[in-house]
């Protein structure tokens, strides 16, 4: 009886519990129906507000590398600190704590914190140390937002070329501006879930659109060449206390810019601390009257048109020549000079006469062919096309003055591009700064190949001009300070008067000194242009700019591994020719005679190394198949075994060097 009763009670209990569960479950189901179906819209909206967080991912900017893939400009995510003034409890205390960390005045920070606006930036792109210090204070109403910041690890190096970015970050100057569409990525967005405490939860179903990183650039610039160039320019400017300067190093066969140095310059990491004129890339934005460097193009035009030959003689009027109602002067008085000597000694009167053989129209058409008066379309913003009036607008004296580079203006990039055409057998190449554009996986998006800008002169004429320009760097020429022992350098100096802004006339003191050249002259690998603006003291291009060229060229020889001319010729001082021909000017008090290294060496006798440089001694030893042991530096002063004798068993020789006494 008792068992039956308890069984019945058990059934009742189970039923009651079941009903209870069913009841509770029904309530849940009904509530679910209400929330999920009847009030779906409202609830979803409420949920999204509380549970979802929409985060915009800033775009990442591509990296800029040099030609050897060394970083020149990189981006890094850094924190920006903001304040929501309404949420700040103690404004004064907060400002007091933040001011020293942000290195701002207390009043400045307090002003921001007590602003009427709901959101105020306290400081954009602070350093990681600053962000950590602020975070550790746990201040209410203070928050962080991540932003991208551009860093230039080499500071001033190539800064005028690279440019800089703004806060957005968009390119504002230089390559950063001209390649902005490639460098700048697309912003992304991510829809995150978050819990009641605001912590992010990653769920697979959440939509995410990654920010794309911009493409990377590989420049044609070589960091090492750039450094050497900037250093040489800096020293050159310091020596002559000049206002500004520009150097461009170009590969004439490809049009690649290997270095582009500009002074004054700036540090792009803090560009706002500098004046806008310091940001300017003078190599493309500024134009100047090129002066005598322009004679190289006059010679090219006249030789190409065959209106003159290198051996044709011009009478240089002993320094003063009336032309077009004015008097044209030479720095030194010359009598008769051959066309080659006109360029070598840089005679303005001779140049004027060569231009006359060519005529205005033909000269103008060649100047245009060399690219003067039009942009080179280099991949840099703000290019200046220079100033070249058509012959119809030329004054009576213009033909004469343009012949020696006055009355025409050019940008440094135009000048080096034109010079490179002579170096490249008459073929002009379009200058460019970017080699490849590639993504992070290394896939090449765009490759900028060497592009021809047309043939200007024939290869024969180009070689003739190169030979003439070579003589301008040799003894007696105006560019001897650019001479490099063992290498054939072709070059031309230029010293042009500047127009005085106040008097609107040519200034007697303000000059632009320049030197442009290429080497090795027979097979040019590098073309260099040096422009020094307003030097003090001696202002000639041969004195001011040529040493800068030499300094750069000397370093490039070892860096680019450019071998000396085969069968190299040593320079030995010898007396100058005693007589002059007719009324030709006597110029060379001392000239250099080329003497073959192998001259006078007997096959089996021990050669005389004394008086030779280490390089010469090595070359001679190599020629005679002698193993040498060297000690010291400078000129050879002693050797063992002595010269003239014969070798015993081994062809070995010990040579001692000592620096020459100055």
């Amino acid at each position, binding site marked *: 009886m008792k068992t039956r009763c308890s069984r019945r009670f058990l059934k009742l209990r189970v039923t009651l519990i079941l009903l209870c569960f069913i009841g509770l479950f029904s309530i849940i189901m009904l509530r679910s129906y209400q929330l999920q179906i009847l009030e779906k819209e409202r609830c979803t909206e409420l949920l999204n507000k509380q549970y979802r967080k929409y985060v915009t991912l800033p775009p990442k900017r591509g990296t800029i590398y040099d030609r050897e893939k060394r970083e020149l400009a990189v981006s890094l995510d850094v924190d920006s600190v903001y304040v929501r003034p309404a949420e700040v409890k103690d404004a004064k205390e907060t400002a007091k704590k933040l001011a020293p960390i942000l290195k701002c005045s207390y009043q400045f920070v307090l002003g921001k914190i007590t602003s009427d606006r709901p959101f105020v930036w306290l400081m954009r792109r602070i350093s990681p140390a600053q962000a950590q210090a602020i975070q550790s204070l746990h201040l209410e109403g203070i928050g962080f937002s991540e932003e991208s910041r551009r860093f230039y690890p080499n500071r001033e190096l190539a800064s005028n070329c690279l440019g800089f970015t703004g806060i957005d970050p968009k390119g504002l100057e230089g390559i950063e501006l001209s390649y902005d569409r490639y460098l700048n990525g697309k912003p992304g967005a991510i829809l995150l879930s978050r819990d009641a405490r605001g912590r992010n*939860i990653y769920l697979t179903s959440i939509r995410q659109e990654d920010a794309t990183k911009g493409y990377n650039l590989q420049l044609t610039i070589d960091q090492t060449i750039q450094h050497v160039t900037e250093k040489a320019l800096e020293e050159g400017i310091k020596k002559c206390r000049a206002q500004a300067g520009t150097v461009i190093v170009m590969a004439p066969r490809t049009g690649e810019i290997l270095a582009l140095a500009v002074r004054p310059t700036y540090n792009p990491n803090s560009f706002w601390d500098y004046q806008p004129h310091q940001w300017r890339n003078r190599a493309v934005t500024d134009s100047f009257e090129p002066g005598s460097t322009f004679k190289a193009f006059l010679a090219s035009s006249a030789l190409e048109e065959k209106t003159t030959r290198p051996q044709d003689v011009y009478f240089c009027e002993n320094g003063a020549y009336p032309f077009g109602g004015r008097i044209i002067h030479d720095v030194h008085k010359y009598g008769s000079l051959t066309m080659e000597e006109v360029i070598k000694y840089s005679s303005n009167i001779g140049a004027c006469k060569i231009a006359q053989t060519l005529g205005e129209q033909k000269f103008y058409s060649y100047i245009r062919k060399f690219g003067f008066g039009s942009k080179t379309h280099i991949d840099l913003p703000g290019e200046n096309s220079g100033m070249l009036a058509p012959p119809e607008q030329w004054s009576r004296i213009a033909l004469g003055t343009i012949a020696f580079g006055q009355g025409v203006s050019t940008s440094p990039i135009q000048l080096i591009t034109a010079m490179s055409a002579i170096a490249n057998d008459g073929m002009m190449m379009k200058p460019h700064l970017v080699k490849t554009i590639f993504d992070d996986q290394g896939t090449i998006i765009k490759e900028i190949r060497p592009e021809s800008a047309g043939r200007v002169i024939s290869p024969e004429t180009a070689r003739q001009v190169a030979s003439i320009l070579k003589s301008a760097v040799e003894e007696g020429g105006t560019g001897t300070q650019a001479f490099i022992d063992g290498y054939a350098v072709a070059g031309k100096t230029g010293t042009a008067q500047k127009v005085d802004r106040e008097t609107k006339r040519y200034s007697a003191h303000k000059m632009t000194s320049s030197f442009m050249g290429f080497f090795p002259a027979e097979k040019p690998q590098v073309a260099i242009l040096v422009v020094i603006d307003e030097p003090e003291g001696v202002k000639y291009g041969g004195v001011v700019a040529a040493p800068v060229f030499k300094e750069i060229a000397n370093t490039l020889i070892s860096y680019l591994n450019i071998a000396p001319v085969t069968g190299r010729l040593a320079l030995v001082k010898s007396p100058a020719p005693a007589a002059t021909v007719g009324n030709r000017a006597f110029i060379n008090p001392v000239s250099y005679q080329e003497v073959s290294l192998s001259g006078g060496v007997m096959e089996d006798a021990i050669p005389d190394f004394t008086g030779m440089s280490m390089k010469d001694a090595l070359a001679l030893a190599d020629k005679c198949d002698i193993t040498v042991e060297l000690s010291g530096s400078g000129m050879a002063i002693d050797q063992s075994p002595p010269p003239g004798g014969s070798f015993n068993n081994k062809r070995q020789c010990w040579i001692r060097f000592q620096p020459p006494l100055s």
Partner: protein
Amino acid sequence: MTTSLGVAVLVCSLIFLVWSRFQVTSVGYQISRAKDEQKQLLKINKGLKIEGASLKSLSRIEKIAKGRLGLNNPEPQQMVHLQ
């Protein structure tokens, strides 16, 4: 008996469902933390790369080479060109 078994299976399923949801959320937190950590590490890595690039700056190296180590550029006669 069958009902009880059915209820037990239902309860177990519900418990499993709740457990799996909890696990998903928990893993979600872990991923979130890992992502933050990854971001921080990438940031540090990038910072170190920039620092490395700054330290490799040629002007700095030249200063050390010439100042501290007493090195100099080779004179032309000290160079031997190998063909």
